[in-house]
């Protein structure tokens, strides 16, 4: 009897995992078959294409400017992530090492910043960006997204720095090293292990951002990938083949990073949540 239930439960678990894996791969599979079929091919999307039609990719690249969009996303994500890391690490230092009353209030305010849903400030944010000339600029979207992701970076760096003994710095301080020397030579190198997590937790959502960039970047020359993919796609005039091709091309860069740094992605997700 116990032997039987053990085997039965093993089969049930195996089936559950198989269902989960199929569910997670199905959207990718359907976009692949859709992307590689011409519009005149009326076979089901579940059926693989019998010839590899590349017209959708050509359309995504030539008419949709998906490479331009990928470049724009690289600029916004690179600049934004770098700013989140630098400003986050700098801010975390005094907030961890100088536990004054003021700094506790500052930390509480940063927590409030973290809770503001981006869409809740859509009207004032967009109209402010119009006023200061931030629409259709890299800096407009980058600084907006930096503000959104900086609080988590500050909290992760603070939590990490709090677990690093002050004595390491104290020795350098006794040797007469100034604040910036200490930051540069001792504190920042100590933050390396958590930096990969912070970079992924800020970089992935910035790369994927849609809700604000679809409005802030409406000019094709600066538009990033998510709003670009959505231009292929509207309920009335959809070009789903090109939308699929664009989606897949836009996913390639992040997939490559994932394949090489998979461990950091998983650790980062857990670290960001549990801290």
């Amino acid at each position, binding site marked *: 009897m116990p032997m039987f239930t053990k085997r039965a439960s093993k089969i049930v678990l195996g089936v*559950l995992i198989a269902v989960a*894996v199929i569910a997670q791969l199905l959207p990718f599979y359907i976009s692949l078959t859709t992307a590689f079929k011409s519009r005149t091919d009326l076979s089901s999307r579940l059926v693989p294409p019998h010839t590899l039609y590349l017209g959708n990719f050509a359309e995504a690249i030539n008419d949709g400017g998906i490479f331009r969009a990928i470049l724009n996303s690289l600029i916004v994500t690179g600049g934004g992530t770098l700013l989140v890391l630098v400003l986050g690490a*700098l801010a975390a230092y005094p907030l961890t090492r100088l536990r004054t009353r*003021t700094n506790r209030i500052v930390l509480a305010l940063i927590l409030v910043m973290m809770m503001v849903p981006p869409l809740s*400030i859509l009207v*004032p944010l967009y109209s402010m960006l119009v006023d200061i000339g931030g629409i259709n600029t890299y800096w407009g979207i980058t600084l907006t997204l930096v503000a959104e992701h900086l609080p988590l970076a500050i909290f992760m760096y603070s939590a990490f720095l709090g677990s690093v003994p002050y004595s390491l710095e104290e020795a350098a301080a006794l040797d007469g090293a100034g604040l910036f020397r200490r930051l540069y030579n001792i504190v920042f190198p100590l933050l390396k292990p958590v930096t990969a997590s912070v970079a992924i937790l800020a970089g992935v959502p910035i790369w*994927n951002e849609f809700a604000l960039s679809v409005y802030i970047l409406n000019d094709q020359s600066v538009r990033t990938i998510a709003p670009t993919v959505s231009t292929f796609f509207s309920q009335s005039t959809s070009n789903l083949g090109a939308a699929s091709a664009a989606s897949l091309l*836009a996913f390639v860069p992040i997939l490559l990073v994932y394949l090489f740094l998979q461990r950091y992605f998983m650790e980062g997700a*857990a670290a960001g*949540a549990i801290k």
Partner: protein
Amino acid sequence: MRSVPLRANLLYVPALIIFAIFIAYPLIRGFGISFTSWDGFSPQKHFIGVDNYLRLFTDSTFGHVVLNTFIYGVGSTVLQQVFGLGLALILRKPTRRSGILRAIIYLPALVSPVIMGTMYYLLFQYNDGALNDLVGLFGADKVAWLNNATVAIIIIVLVNSLQFMGISMVIYLAGLHSIPAMYYEASTLDGAAGWKQFLHITAPLLWPAFTASVVLNLINGLKLFDVITVLTAGGPGYSTNSVSTLISITYFDSQNAGYAASMGVVLFAIIVVFALIVNSSFSRLNPEAD
């Protein structure tokens, strides 16, 4: 006692300036706009007092959309805990095979929700959707999956939960791996196994992972925007909107910036209230605290 000079506080000034310009100022300005009938582009704004808020209370569309927002938030949170914890328990052994399976299950979490929504649209579309092809194989009529509000809402919750269940799984895996193996060994010697071990060792020690995952999923679910935009654009009618999508429609399509700003204030309030409720109920329920 410490040799960290007070001027080190200057190091957080750049961060505070960014928060001030891009979050705090819009938050205050939005509060101001919510008391006007501004259309979003004309230079003057007419003060109308609390009219927008009174209108929110009597607007049955808005009430419906707030309910949708709760369903997106709570529904996604429940599903993601079930999926995430289940997968973590099944794939907890650090073998090569479970490593590959974990990587696949986590994969969709990296995709932009707009792209994930586009991919799922290929599945649920009425005319050429893959799911209706399957339905056709059984000789049944095509189903208008996304044109039925109830079904569409379930689909949106499901798509959001499947896409991000990998993150919940990873959070629970981190929790499981922090439980010392000797706890299980000791309880096995005492004759406990299976459910008993889960209830008395695993569940209480997973509490931090559970709270972290619930807070994350709940807030992201309440903010849901991208998937709705691609799958239904809030339709049919206004029936699948969340507060977030309704704000953008009210602002950009209906050019009713003042009204949209008041919805923004309500959305912020909803998130704050949920965060406070979850926080206080979690600290009261914590099994570690007696």
